[in-house]
């Protein structure tokens, strides 16, 4: 009975991300006992803000968590990944700045309300998603290759939208989305993530999106026979990812009030895919667990923050990340898992045998 319990726990999808999270937390506690200390201080403008490593992780992991939501749906429905999210963040962000600043790159006041700019960014993000989705669902091109198009062109298009200028948003209100609202010590990004999670949870609960997505991912032709339209479902998941991209772009651009086309959200597609994989979702599509992916995103951010804590250079960061990823992937590989569970069974069996022999 104890064995089946262990199997149940280790077999659960959340096991890997939670274990990784605990491992990281323990390592950090050993190295720096004050790692989890959260202090209330004031920022440059005199407003109360919370600071500490934990807050940093929650703050900077938000874009990743939002992208992980969309990426999970895309992965589940199409069995492929969207590698253009970083580039589409650049496009959506650039469009947002274009609306906010107009043709003048150093305006005194913003040219349009922030909400209008955000809606434009949403439309742009969804259009990019629709482009990818059309290629994948209608033309039956593999998702990774279809999104390679925007991956290659995205940053160029972003630069082209603003004529390669770097407009700066003058309004301090615009900074709230990626920073703090005066008077509230918790980073605004946390609220944005919570809002996104509530929306997706409601959508999954009250619509058939989750069920249909999994059905299409598991077996496209049999889901078609059951009256689901796989083309539309795949298309829809890409559009939803486009919306997630627009929200992430708002946060990214708001953090610095401007944009750097070649650097903004660089390698974020890799992190988002890793978050989905780390959450134990099969990258070949099918069943998914949204919570697991979101947790995976924060684990990745935790890892990044930890590495920075160890004074790892930002350029060398990727090497350490790669080692961790490979270890995690090997550990969760089905072949290795079966080998280990076989080994456990053998050990416990031989233990039983010995006990019986002693009797």
């Amino acid at each position, binding site marked *: 009975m104890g064995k089946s319990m262990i199997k149940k726990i280790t077999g659960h999808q959340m096991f890997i991300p939670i274990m990784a999270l605990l491992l990281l937390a323990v390592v950090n506690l050993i190295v720096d006992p004050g790692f989890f200390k959260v202090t209330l201080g004031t920022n440059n403008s005199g407003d109360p803000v919370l600071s500490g490593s934990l807050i940093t992780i929650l703050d900077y992991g938000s874009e990743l968590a939002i992208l992980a939501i969309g990426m999970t749906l895309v992965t589940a429905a199409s069995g492929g*990944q969207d590698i253009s999210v970083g580039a589409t963040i650049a496009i959506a962000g650039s469009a947002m700045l274009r609306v906010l600043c107009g043709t003048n790159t150093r305006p005194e006041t913003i040219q349009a309300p922030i909400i209008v700019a955000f809606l434009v960014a949403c439309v742009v993000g969804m259009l990019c998603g629709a482009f990818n989705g059309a*290629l994948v669902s209608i*033309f*039956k*091109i*593999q998702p*990774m*290759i*279809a999104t*390679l*198009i*925007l*991956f*290659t*062109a*995205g*940053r*160029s*298009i972003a*630069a*082209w939208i603003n004529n*390669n200028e770097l407009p700066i948003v003058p309004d301090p209100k615009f900074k709230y989305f990626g920073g703090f609202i005066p008077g509230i010590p918790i980073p605004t990004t946390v609220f944005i993530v919570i809002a996104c999670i509530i929306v997706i949870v409601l959508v999954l609960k009250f619509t058939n999106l989750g069920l249909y997505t999994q059905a299409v991912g598991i077996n496209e032709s049999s889901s078609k026979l059951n009256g689901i339209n796989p083309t539309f479902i795949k298309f829809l998941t890409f559009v939803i990812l486009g919306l997630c991209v627009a929200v992430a772009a708002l946060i990214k651009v708001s953090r610095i009030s401007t944009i750097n086309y070649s650097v903004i959200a660089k390698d974020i597609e*890799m992190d988002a*895919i*890793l978050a989905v*994989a780390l959450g134990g979702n099969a*990258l*070949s599509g099918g069943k998914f667990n949204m919570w697991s992916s979101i947790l995976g995103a924060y684990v990745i951010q935790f890892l990044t923050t930890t590495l920075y804590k160890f004074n790892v*250079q930002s*350029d*060398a*960061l*990727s*090497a*350490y*990340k*790669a*080692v961790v*990823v*490979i270890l995690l*992937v*090997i550990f969760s*590989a*089905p*072949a*290795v898992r079966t080998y280990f569970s076989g080994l456990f069974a053998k050990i416990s069996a031989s233990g039983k045998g010995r006990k019986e022999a002693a009797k």
Partner: protein
Amino acid sequence: MSKKKLIKGNLFNRMSDTNLLLIITVVIFFLMYIGAIIFQGGGFTKPQMLFNILNSNAALIITACGMSIVMISGGIDISVGGVVALVSMSCAVYLDFHNGSIIGSFLIALAIGLAYGIVQGLLVAYLDIQPFIVSLAGMFFARGMTTIINTKPFNVENNQAFLNLKQTRITVPGMGSYNRKGIYVPAYIEIGVVVALVLVIILFLVLRYTKLGRSFYAVGGNKQSALMLGINVKRTKFFSHLICSTLAGIGGYVYFLHVGSGSASHAMGMEMNAIASSIIGGTMLSGGVGNIIGTLFGVLSLSTIQNIVSSAGLDQAWWTGITIAAMLCIFLLIQSVVMRQRKRALKS
């Protein structure tokens, strides 16, 4: 009955997928090049233009060939750009700081490629981990290691033997052009181009005539049937990754020979260019379809369009990215539509 006969007699439907896509690529490349000669003239009329394209893309040709092999057998390897950067940096440090020998540096390049191939091949083939994730981690690792070896980019300046090798030019007999002063300038190629072309021929023969080469197609086309045929699927997958990473190592050395420096930002996005060239050359990511000669033309098409765009006056950096993407998009749509037409024709 008469319908069936019609399909059999139709050249379009009789051709294998691989050959059809190859012919589309080759025809489009020649149309593009002839179009460039007619409408733009200038540099394109000189044979050196073509050789320059070859000179600067020798490394891409080699890595793209490796990518095609992995893609034919149904996998993907996005670590090649990272491997190229790692090889350039390691060789640059070895040659410049430790005054190493040419042979030694080449062995380093080969060793890095082989090590990458063995590790990634084992993980993908025998542990059944998704090739995308494995090579993603491989790319991260290579880029990070490059920075750890040496942070700042630098040129190799203290190694005369290497500089001599880098300067070596092979003149092409019978080709050349007269410059403005009327002096005959013979066309030249670099050593890397010879390496690349020899590798293309070898790989073409391997894929077409050897048992291993055919099993790449079989495994990529249908794993189950390949297993039924008695092909060792795991070993075939392993070899596809081994060959790809080794070629990335060699490609890295050729790249290093062309640029003569080490930098963490070298070959940024080369994996995507390699994948794009393979696709333009008619390799399908779903596996089982592809051709090395097509990949060669894929690289040539890709860089020709870049040259056309920049000499047409659209020299802002973003036009290159947009044109490559547009070209990729067009080729993908052509492939998708053509394949669907064929499927429909075969069914009816």
